């Protein structure tokens, strides 16, 4: 095999591929990239992890057809350091692979290319397109709620729920649930289709989606694929049924609170300085036309800040894990946010004032009131202004 690439193009392809490969795996083949040239002017780079695999097509001059594997990390690190405006030649000689660029030559460990599992052709049941930007937006809003580990395997991915031309993506770690919607375009929009897409694939997508262009998505019962230009991802879906998330979304609210997002986010960042790992939470106290943000901890002292708010449904106190709150607020679009709640101990919803297409269900923290005197009316007006 002998293939010539433009360094810049090879680097881009290698970056996408090596990001999927898994050098930590005990299975050597998962740490490899398969480079294959079987057309005259196109080569492909393939890599895979347990569930996810990727194939990138890269323009190339295939001088001698063939295929070879290279260790993903070493290969990528090496080609990245080559002069980006030159050509690079990858060729095999017997058991070896060499990468040559001008006077630079690298020779690398390799494995028999035939051992690389073949690319399974997928028979799609459902296909649709959407703007890459739209998918990116959905992922930005949902991905952080999908846990890295959890004993409930079905939570280790995001639910893609398709109803006609509406796509709803849901993620949850059991404490906070994200829900984001987008429209899709499809020739045969399905009445109803559900699948769980594993986190790792979503992370890869998140890294490679652009502001422009379309992404073509395909599902069957077991697999899912995303094509963005010359990159094709294919992955097993997470098996099993996603929890019935509708059950945890409250339908009616006794209370609504409207707050400006940037000052609230800043206040929570300040409050976080006063909370410690023990407390891990901030308290929101709605009174009249204000919301007070409170935090305290034994070691670090106490924090108080007041912001204007529109309070519907009476005074209210509720505590949240401050990290959840930060993440949620950061991801919500628009300047104004809306908190919908019932009781201090029932799920609450955070959403953007003017956007229906994204919201978070957050479970408040149950605060065990201290018995000490300090708890009674801890902050009077003067202190608040000081």
């Amino acid at each position, binding site marked *: 095999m002998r293939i010539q690439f433009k360094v810049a193009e090879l680097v881009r392809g290698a970056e996408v591929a090596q990001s999927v490969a898994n050098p930590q795996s005990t299975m050597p083949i998962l740490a490899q990239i398969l480079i294959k040239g079987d057309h005259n002017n196109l080569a492909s780079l393939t890599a895979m992890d347990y569930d996810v695999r990727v194939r990138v097509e890269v323009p190339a001059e295939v001088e001698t057809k063939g295929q070879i594997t290279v260790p993903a990390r070493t290969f990528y690190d090496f080609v990245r350091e080559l002069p980006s405006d030159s050509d690079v030649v990858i060729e095999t000689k017997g058991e070896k692979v060499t990468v040559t660029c001008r006077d630079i030559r690298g020779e690398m460990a390799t494995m028999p290319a035939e051992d690389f599992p*073949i690319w399974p052709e*997928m028979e799609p049941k459902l296909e649709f397109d959407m703007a890459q930007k739209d998918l990116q937006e959905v992922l930005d809003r949902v991905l952080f709620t999908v846990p890295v580990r959890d004993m*409930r395997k079905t939570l280790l991915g995001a639910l893609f729920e398709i109803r006609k031309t509406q796509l709803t993506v849901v993620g949850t770690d059991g404490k906070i649930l994200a829900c984001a919607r987008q429209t899709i375009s499809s020739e045969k929009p399905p009445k109803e289709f559900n699948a769980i897409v594993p986190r790792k694939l979503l992370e890869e997508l998140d890294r490679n989606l652009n502001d422009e262009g379309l992404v073509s998505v395909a599902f069957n019962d077991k697999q899912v694929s995303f094509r963005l230009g010359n990159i094709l991802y294919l992955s097993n879906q997470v098996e099993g049924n996603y929890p019935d998330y509708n059950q*945890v979304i409250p339908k009616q609210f006794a209370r609504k609170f409207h707050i400006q997002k940037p000052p609230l986010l800043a206040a929570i960042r300040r409050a976080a300085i006063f909370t410690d790992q023990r407390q891990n939470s901030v308290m929101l106290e709605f009174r009249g036309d204000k919301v007070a943000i409170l935090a305290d901890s034994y070691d670090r002292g106490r924090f108080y800040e007041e912001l204007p708010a529109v309070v519907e449904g009476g005074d209210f106190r509720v505590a949240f894990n401050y990290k959840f709150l930060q993440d949620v607020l950061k991801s919500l679009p628009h300047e104004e946010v809306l908190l919908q709640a019932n009781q201090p101990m029932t*799920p609450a919803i955070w959403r953007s004032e003017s956007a229906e297409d994204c919201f978070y269900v957050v*479970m408040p923290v149950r605060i065990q009131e201290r018995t000490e005197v300090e708890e009674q009316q801890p902050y009077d007006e003067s202190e608040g202004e000081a």
Partner: protein
Amino acid sequence: MLQEHMIRILPASLVNKIAAGEVIVRPASVVKELVENAVDAGAQRIVIDLANSCRDIRVRDDGCGIAREDLPKALLRHATSKIERFEDLWQLRTRGFRGEALASIAAVARLTILTRQRGELAGARLQSEPGQEPIVEAAGAPEGTDVWVRDLFFNTPVRLKFLKSPASELQLILYMVTRQALIRPDIGFVVANERDTLLEVPPQQPWRDRAVALLGMEADQHLLSVEGHRQGIHVRGFAAAPAFSRKDRRFQYFFVNGRPITHRMLSNVVQQAYKGLLMTQRFAVVILNIELPPQEVDVNVHPTKEEVRFRNEAMVLGVVHRAVQESLAGANLLPTISLSSPPGPEGRQDELISASHWFAHSTGARPTVPGDFTQWTMQTPSAGGTPGEHELSRLVAAQREFDLAQQAQRNQESCLNTSVESPCSVHPLGQQASPEPSPTTAQAEAQALLLSGGEYPEPLGQVADCYIVARAGENLLLIDQHAAHERLLYMQLRERAQEKVNTQPLLLPVTVDVPVEAVPTIQALTREFTALGLHVEHFGGTTFVVQSVPADLPSIDVGGVLMDVVDDSLALGKEGDLDSLRDRILTRMACRGAIKSGQKLSLDEMRQLVRDIVDSRMGFTCPHGRPTMILLTRAQLDRQFKRVVS
């Protein structure tokens, strides 16, 4: 041929050949003997009722019953209907054969037996008190036998005193019944105490269903069948996929001709068969019945009949090893990548990349490294490498020194103050080898170093995703992220065991399945869990539901904690009790809640952790005595770089 079901007294000559010893040492032994009798009697259903802290035990069966005229004999020592001659021992198909159990029980408890033989019209009742002649009378009774033991050990106060907590006795009983029930899926078992039905399995269950019912529903996805035979030795049963492994060998159930046994070597060969599939300190879960001609195995080794000796042990071990290995190899244990690939242009048909396939690669076909590097002119790193490299190798050396110093310290427990003079004496904080190592001054000193300049140490980054490197004033601080966080959590958990805890209720509660024998322990511990912010409720059967987690550990792996505690409770079983378990819960929660080794942290997260650690003034070693942080002072660095002569 033995005359069926007639109880005879064994001759003294035979008695002497039977392994003797005390069999009734605790409630679980009573249950074991009575259940074995019921099984021997051909029962279809066995109901075990427990009361009075497991000192009242009632075992009912629908087996063959005992003839009225035999009843008094049943309580005599060495009275059995199961063997007659020594040779019978080699043909044994029953659980019992020593005729000793009922006699031993009758010596330490009040006993009532109500029984009616199959096909007889009238039944009989026997009542006995230790030291008195039993009273036998005619009585109405359902077919079968009902043995009711009360006030166990009331006349042996010492034994009574040494009984474990009711929960651990109960656990042992359940373990015992589980073993019997695992190998007799044809018999229905019920175990209940005053409050609950603890175990219930119907008669005539398929073997696999029985196994799943007893190992917890989760086992369903993991059990692989095992089948193998050679030269009259048959092995049948189940081996669980590695994902379902355990912390100890307790879940390796072995049976020989249907008799539950323990056998170290068997367990070892099973572990061997899993080689490469299990993490260290994890043990496979298996249920294996070895069938072989009775004369090939000696059960008369130990009074509790727990141990056996094989005539040809090597052969038996070999068959088991191979059977388990084959079962594992046949299963697709690794994540499947191309489940539905049609034969591709490459013409390969590896739709299922099976475990054996992968292993072939991971062992045989390592990447081939090109051989002729020598012809290339390669620059060897010069002695004066970059400063960064240098520092690093020093650190590594320092670490090694430190390890050695630690070891030396351990070797010299008695003279703690011997300062280990190494070129660079790196100390775990708080263990500074000062002349008077009063813990408080050492700690204060360490604290001062940590906060030198009045600032929290500033994290610089992570090494190997395991250690945090931080600058503490002019000093260099190295933190083992997992150990340090675990230590921090442990302290916090212990401290707050007294106070009320903020909790994070879950949107989606977590369900956890535990082995049936652990159910009472977890139930007994729910209050402890709640006090720590883990709201655990019994959902029924082997299932528990976790409704909330401690607010400061929102990402704690609750399932993991519960399973760890189950493992601990089972391991403690014999010696342990609830009190020692309480502390284990804290340890487990700390471990499962802590940042993992290998976890990437953002600078913010590191900063947060460092601040929490400094604020906590926590000890600088973990509960196991390993250091959690290492501080290299400016002075030590200077010395290392030969800037000052020490």
